[in-house]
């Protein structure tokens, strides 16, 4: 039977971050993810803002964000993840919003985040594309952007390199519990004897808790939709542009991404359908209207794609604590800031486990970095790349400038891509302007070569979908 000192349930950014930190200790770590890849839940559908403040000041969430924020450059350098501290400008549009600015400002600095009240003119210096109706704003220099999928995969890759076991397509289906402790987890890949369980199941954290005899809490999806605009527009935008937040949401934002495109969103709608990630035109139109109030040049003429994600909302918006009933069960989850807390989350969970008696000693020889793969898209000196690897001469995805090197690295890593979406997540191939109409066949060919599957069986789309339904032999 498999044995784990710590079983992490869920391969989103939070589970992967915890596994990465624990893998640097003597604890034996197993992470199981029911989907066929990491970051298939909220972790692939967010805006990739590494925020410097969120939630209520003084809460654990706010503290972990504050601890995480200064770490981004160092962490992302070690994990080969794109990150940029570009700063945000929050805009008051019209005099009424301007009157509310000081209160918003006070709330932000109460987090310990850097912020500065600015005039409309100063705001325009920060971001020239903002609306002429801007009546003042707040500069937030420590807001940053990150590639959340690369981050999740990199945490898992680090964990695997340090000896943790990362198992995808493996679902936790139940637990055996005795005397207020879980001692075994049942999974689709057989039982696992466990000392501790970290429930990082996102939107399904309530199910996992229930299966383990833990607290009964309720999770529901808070859906958020986005537009993705082309790099040609993104190249003109310098900073994150935020509206004045409302009570329950930060509102629709204009978000540059690390690959140069721009996101418009998210919306926020509580729903009942956990697996529904469909977009709708009314919401998308509303997003355009809202963001155009901030940046008038925003237009669907630049649109590449739209998508939706489900925030794991619950009666508690953030959890990183032990269960009240089951002694060896920890819940980690965050509705809206899981990416932003992730750098400090591992340390926090490790602290909880040690306090509860887990002998997890830091191993001096454990790694804290994964190999860097230079990318053609952002190579300052692209002419030098072929001397590192001749396969850089072969561009597979022209829109995103992805070569055979980046794709092979994704297919050959410790937690490799096994599908078209897996390659897209790790390299951006097929994710650009033409959405794979030119390169998807080439990507499928490379996946086929590495996995040994015929093209029709290559996974594409969610939940085990495939490129084709069979092979025509005649």
């Amino acid at each position: 039977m498999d044995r784990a000192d710590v079983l992490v349930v869920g391969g989103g950014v939070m589970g992967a971050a915890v596994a990465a930190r624990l893998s640097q200790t003597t604890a034996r770590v197993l992470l199981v993810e029911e989907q066929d890849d990491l970051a298939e839940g909220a972790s692939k559908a967010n805006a990739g803002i590494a925020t410097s403040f969120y939630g209520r000041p003084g809460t654990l969430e706010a503290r972990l964000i504050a601890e995480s924020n200064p770490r981004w450059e160092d962490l992302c350098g070690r994990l080969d993840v794109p990150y940029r501290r570009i700063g945000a400008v929050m805009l008051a549009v019209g005099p009424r919003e301007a009157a509310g600015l000081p209160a918003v400002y006070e709330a932000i600095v109460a987090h310990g985040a850097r912020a500065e009240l600015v005039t409309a003119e100063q705001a325009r210096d920060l971001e020239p594309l903002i609306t002429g109706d801007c009546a003042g704003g707040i500069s937030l220099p420590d807001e940053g952007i990150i590639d959340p999928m690369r981050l999740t995969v990199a945490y898992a890759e680090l964990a695997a390199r340090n000896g943790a076991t990362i198992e995808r397509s493996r679902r936790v289906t139940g637990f055996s519990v005795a005397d207020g402790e879980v001692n075994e987890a049942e999974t689709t890949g057989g039982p696992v004897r466990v000392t501790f369980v970290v429930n990082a199941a996102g939107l399904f954290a309530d199910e996992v808790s229930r299966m383990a005899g833990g607290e009964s809490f309720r999770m529901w999806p808070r859906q958020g939709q986005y537009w993705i605009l082309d790099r040609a527009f993104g190249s003109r935008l310098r900073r994150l542009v935020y509206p004045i937040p409302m009570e329950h949401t930060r509102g629709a934002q204009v978000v540059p991404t690390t690959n140069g495109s721009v996101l418009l969103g998210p919306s926020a709608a509580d729903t009942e359908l956990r697996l529904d990630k469909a977009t709708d035109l009314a919401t998308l139109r509303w997003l355009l209207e809202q963001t155009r109030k901030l940046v008038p040049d925003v237009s669907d003429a630049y649109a590449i794609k739209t998508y939706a994600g489900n925030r794991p909302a619950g009666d508690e918006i953030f959890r990183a604590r032990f269960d009240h009933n089951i002694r060896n069960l920890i819940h980690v989850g965050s509705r809206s800031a899981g990416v932003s807390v992730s750098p400090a989350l591992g340390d926090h969970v490790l602290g909880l486990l040690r306090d509860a008696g887990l002998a997890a000693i830091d191993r001096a020889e454990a790694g804290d970095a994964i190999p860097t793969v230079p990318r053609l898209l952002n190579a300052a000196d692209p002419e030098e790349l072929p001397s590192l690897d001749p396969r850089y001469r072969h561009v597979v995805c022209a829109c995103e400038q992805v070569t055979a090197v980046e794709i092979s690295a994704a297919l050959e890593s410790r937690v490799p891509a096994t599908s078209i979406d897996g390659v897209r997540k790790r390299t951006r191939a097929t994710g650009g302007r033409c959405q794979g109409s030119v390169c998807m066949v080439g990507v499928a060919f490379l996946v086929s070569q590495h996995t040994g599957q015929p093209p029709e069986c290559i996974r594409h789309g969610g939940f085990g979908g495939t490129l084709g339904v069979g092979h025509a032999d005649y």
Partner: protein
Amino acid sequence: MPTTEAKIAVVGAGLAGLTLASELAQETSALVIDRLPMYGGVLGYEHPLVRTLARRCEAVRVEFHLATTATRWEGHRVLLVGPTGIRWTPATRLLIATGTRPSTQAEMGISGERLAGVLPAPVAIHLAEAEVTLGHRVTVVGWGNWANRTLEAIRHHGAHTACIPLSDAPGVADGFDESWPGWYPVRVEGRSRVERLILAKDGAEHVIECDAVILAAKPRPLRNVDGAIWPDSPSATFIQPVAESLTAEEVVEAAKKAAAELGSRAAMGSR
């Protein structure tokens, strides 16, 4: 990679690119770049018109860089990635003749998740030609070149085929098992693979049950060279005839016209 300073760089060795190069290289030096190892673009290198144009290009000493992708343009140099290396290559003007692609799901305004079975026509055609069965009930959105080529590629796979032509011209969508002229696709539904395409017309909805949706409509210029994406990009010209249905002659015609304009501008010394 070129040794002398090239005057113009043509990206794309389809009919448009070959026409441009063969016309312009009579006045100035030209290089033609194509990501594929062969010229001809969507028509393929055996097409008689392609062969004629290629011979003409050779006669005026057009420099070919095949299996080479143009990736970035900075107004006076283009980054070429190909078998001989990665090189910034000087050029006074970049001609984008990279052809077209069908609109994506988002561009068509078809809402719903990214589902397996929803494929752009060029991918579907490639896969079908490699004998991948795309679906048992295949719905093709569009009626022009891409749609016809898709139908041709899957014809012997035995699937039931439906066409959403987005046009009610007579004769359009001939050869499909069913056709829905006047209806517009608004949504895809399904769990892992697409199961339904929802159509709308005058406030009414119709559901087509299908396991593949091929996007073959509303062609757009394929633009993938950073720095030469928008029409106002410095020193770049776009020669990408776009129409739901085109003929080879129309493309050659358009490219000739563009070449004449460019030629007279060059003669007047303007850039």
